[in-house]
């Protein structure tokens, strides 16, 4: 961890109006921009570090995501969806593009699948989940391992179908089928 750090915000992101903050950014409100950074940079960095495997690259991705946020805030339309989801979409695009630019070599992939799955069983973290979001992590936790594991590898490691097939020593078609089936089950679970 770096010697000097920005404290992680303790505010629940669900208590913040991301959409209005993004719209304020579009009008040049730097205070709104800084508030979004203070609130979300720690969570964005955590996800980017999982995907990219290094703090330096993760900070590059978060940097780029916030600059994109500022540049493209005028394109955000709240009627299409949640502002926080839009912000994390930008981050995920940037991180995945970085992986692609490097030939999408998985980083830090020695991490056990169990530790990824453990995240879903963390009751302390679950207590902070919003109602809507809580449902998906529950649904994912309920999936049988052969369907859950490839989805976790894609989500946290940015692995492609081919890389997942190689990592799990399974045929490509099998992996594609399991992910499709897993996503379908998630859809069904979320609509319950």
């Amino acid at each position, binding site marked *: 961890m*770096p010697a*000097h*750090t*920005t404290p*992680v915000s303790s505010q629940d*992101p669900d208590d913040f109006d991301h959409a209005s903050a993004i719209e304020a950014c579009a009008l040049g409100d730097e205070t709104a921009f800084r508030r979004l*950074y203070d609130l979300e940079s720690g*969570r964005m*960095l*955590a*996800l980017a*570090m*999982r995907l990219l495997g290094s*703090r330096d*690259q*993760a*900070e*590059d991705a*978060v*940097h*780029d995501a916030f*600059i*994109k946020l*500022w*540049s493209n805030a005028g394109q955000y339309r709240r009627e*299409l*969806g*949640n502002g926080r*989801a839009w912000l*994390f*979409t930008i981050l*995920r695009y*940037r*991180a*995945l*593009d*970085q992986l*692609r*630019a*490097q030939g999408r070599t998985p980083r830090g992939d020695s991490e056990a699948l169990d530790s990824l799955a453990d995240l*879903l069983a963390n009751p302390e*973290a*679950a207590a902070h*989940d*919003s109602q*809507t*979001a*809580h*449902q*998906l*992590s529950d649904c994912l936790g309920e999936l049988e391992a052969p369907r859950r594991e490839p989805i976790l590898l894609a*989500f946290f490691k940015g692995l*492609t*179908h081919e890389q997942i097939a190689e990592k799990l020593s399974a045929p490509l078609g099998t992996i594609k089928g399991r992910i*499709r089936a897993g*996503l*379908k089950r*998630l*859809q069904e679970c*979320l609509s319950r």
Partner: protein
Amino acid sequence: MNHSPIPESPQEQNLLLGEHTLGLLDPEREAEVRAWIERDDEAARMALRWQQHWLSVSDRLPPEPASDSLWKRIDASLTRLKQTPTPANDTGGAPAPQAPWLWRWLGGGLGLGLGAGLALALAMQVGPFAPQSPQDGTPPVANEVPESSAQRMVAVLQTLEDPATPTWVASVTAGGGLQLTPNVTIERPTDRAIELWTLTDPAEGPRSLGLVDPVAGIELSAEQIGRMSPGQLLEMTLEPSGGSPTGKPTGKVLAIGRLVNLGQIDS
């Protein structure tokens, strides 16, 4: 790789978008889906809904304190961004001549005269692109390409240091897309990316066409590149990994060239 079109069933669409939000799609399919999201509000809505659901999973990760230098970098980039003229913050008057990217795109000092000859020579290597429909004898509107994109256009990208050597060849495909093929390997540091830009409207400035694989090149659909015109500039720059943080070229120019209309040569 051939792909099926975007599915019509809402459930299949939702599954495809689920795969997209996970980053599972190969680059070509990913580009198709991103273009679909851009033009279809319902697709954008479904993709954001997936992303909102995935937040519950990423929120299980303990937040990582960011280094103080991260905010300083963002703040510095923001300051530079605000100084860069864009249609949003500089809607009137001539673009500032001191903007380095703008100077480059206006072609100042660039020896691009070799482009047409090299394009013709390289067209033999890349192969002709048969028009989708025969020429009807109607001349195209000056400097514009018909909707059918039946024109055969090629750009030879050259380095500033050695303009006689073609580095990459950009070809407009029969379907109006753009295929960029390496003629030589461009060396780049592992922590840097190569980004492709085009310029259609000097007032708007260069527009990113995405990151380029230095070995395999890149192929873009007609929707991604928009309308292509003879004389249109293409440029590749060295950028931070992930691409330019400002939305405009920031790094060294690796290669640059103009589209040449080869269709007119045959006629």
